[in-house]
């Protein structure tokens, strides 16, 4: 059974239930139950109309739960007739669901969890595995998130930027456990792009596709990081790149530049270079300048310093770096790299070792330690 196909039905089934007037939290529980049931039943008995099946089962689950509730409260006046099917579900239902799950009243971690469950159709267990927390903790996070958004009106238009931030977070968590979060983020962004015509949604989708294309080349067989310049570009996924570039070009043609389009443009320039040496760094610097105008994020200036170092030489890069806040994560790693290119391996080795101490994850720490070791070994010769 294609579980991805099954899960792609989640938002519209949930949308139908909510439009029938069920409270969001109860509807979401019912849809989860229906998904679990589908995984159990479909392999042996696939339905002809998967969405109809899910909607019917979710509706019954809701009624069962409501009846149990009613019995507990000694109230017998709940509806129990299935209403006539309403108008065909529109893409707006899906869209509203994205807005709801990314609502600004939620913390980022809650919005991520709720999006993966209510829009993505993942189980609490899968989400817990992906984020390496106990299942009970994730269940609690999700139910609190549902309570937070339950009182909100479902029909108010949301801000697409909040949704994009959540999807970006999911993508950036990459891969851990048994759920491929990067692929899931792409699926959800693709679905969003189908529901709303917005250049930044397209920009984020392009950005994800272009980065995802490099995934196989990003790690060596022993798990260590392979930097962009040393990646085997024949292992990049050309189909993913082609799709990303096409989506990006269509978005850029609309002349409403945003942060994600600019980032995707930089990724596309890397994807475009047959070898690292042939990278068009001058254009990349120009895109970083655009990006710096669009966002106050200081990391942009740090990355720009690297690009300047490639375009105009390491000295120019170090000058650009001097204007960047040295407390930024990875500042020391960038400084080490530029000093090495500037022909100062002693300083570079010292800075790489220092950067390793500050590394935010093990893969980066190992990579930076190896860089220091490589330079120290050369100097001993």
């Amino acid at each position, binding site marked *: 059974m294609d579980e991805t196909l099954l899960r792609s039905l989640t938002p519209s089934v949930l949308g139908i239930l909510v439009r029938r007037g069920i409270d969001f939290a109860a509807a979401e529980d019912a849809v989860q139950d229906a998904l679990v049931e589908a995984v159990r039943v479909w392999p042996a008995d696939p339905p002809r109309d998967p969405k109809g099946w899910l909607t019917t089962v979710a509706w019954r689950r809701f009624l069962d739960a409501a009846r149990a509730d009613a019995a507990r409260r000694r109230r017998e006046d709940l509806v129990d007739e299935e209403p006539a099917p309403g108008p065909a579900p529109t893409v707006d239902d899906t869209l509203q669901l994205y807005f709801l799950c990314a609502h600004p009243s939620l913390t980022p971690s809650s919005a991520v969890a709720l999006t993966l469950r209510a829009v993505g159709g993942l189980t609490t267990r899968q989400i817990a595995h992906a984020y390496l927390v106990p299942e009970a903790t994730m269940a609690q996070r999700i139910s609190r998130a549902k309570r937070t958004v339950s009182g909100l009106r479902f029909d108010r238009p949301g801000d697409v930027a909040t949704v994009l931030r959540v999807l970006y977070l999911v993508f950036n968590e990459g891969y851990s456990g048994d759920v491929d979060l990067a692929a899931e983020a792409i699926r959800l962004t693709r679905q969003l792009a189908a529901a709303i015509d917005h250049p930044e949604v397209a920009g984020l989708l392009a950005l994800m596709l272009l980065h995802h294309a490099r995934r196989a080349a990003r790690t060596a067989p022993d798990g260590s990081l392979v930097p962009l310049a040393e990646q085997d570009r024949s292992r990049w996924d050309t189909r993913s790149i082609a799709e990303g570039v096409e989506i990006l070009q269509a978005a850029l043609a609309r002349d409403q530049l945003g942060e994600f389009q600019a980032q995707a443009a930089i990724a596309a320039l890397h994807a475009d270079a047959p070898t690292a040496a042939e990278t068009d760094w001058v254009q990349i610097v120009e895109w970083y300048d655009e990006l710096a105008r669009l966002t106050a994020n200081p990391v942009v200036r740090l990355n720009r310093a690297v690009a300047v170092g490639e375009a105009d030489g390491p000295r120019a890069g170090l000058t650009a770096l001097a204007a960047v806040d040295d407390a930024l994560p990875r500042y020391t790693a960038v400084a080490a790299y530029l000093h090495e290119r500037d022909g100062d391996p002693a300083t570079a080795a010292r800075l790489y070792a220092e950067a390793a101490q*500050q590394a935010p994850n093990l893969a980066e720490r190992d990579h930076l330690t190896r860089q220091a070791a490589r330079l120290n070994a050369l100097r001993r010769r």
Partner: protein
Amino acid sequence: MAKYLLLKHYRGGPAAVNDVPMDQWTPAEISAHMQYMRDFAARLEGTGEFVDGQALAPEGTFVRYDGEGRPPVTDGPFAETKDLIAGWMVIDVDSYDRAVDLAGELSAAPGAGGKPIHEWLELRPFLSEPPTITE
């Protein structure tokens, strides 16, 4: 079964026999070390004795309550003399002897010159749940 915590220290324990900072090793020696650690954890997963393993950043802060309505007091970064934990592995094994053997094996991970590091690891038994049968 009994759970044990294997603690690795950045500093605070007695010095290792082969005590050379990793950035002074050769890249091949680093790779050999990483491989050894991965193999060790994978083998313990295979035997059903691995529970958890995590690494910690080498910086941190002491924090304490400072009274009603006041923000917590922080004291940090840690002084150079402070015992500093680098990471841990939790194992669930049949006996204390098995835990000691495994800690010894982990301490034999190759370092500079491809020779075992002989680093000191701290082995700490977990306090367990009270048993059901008490007499």
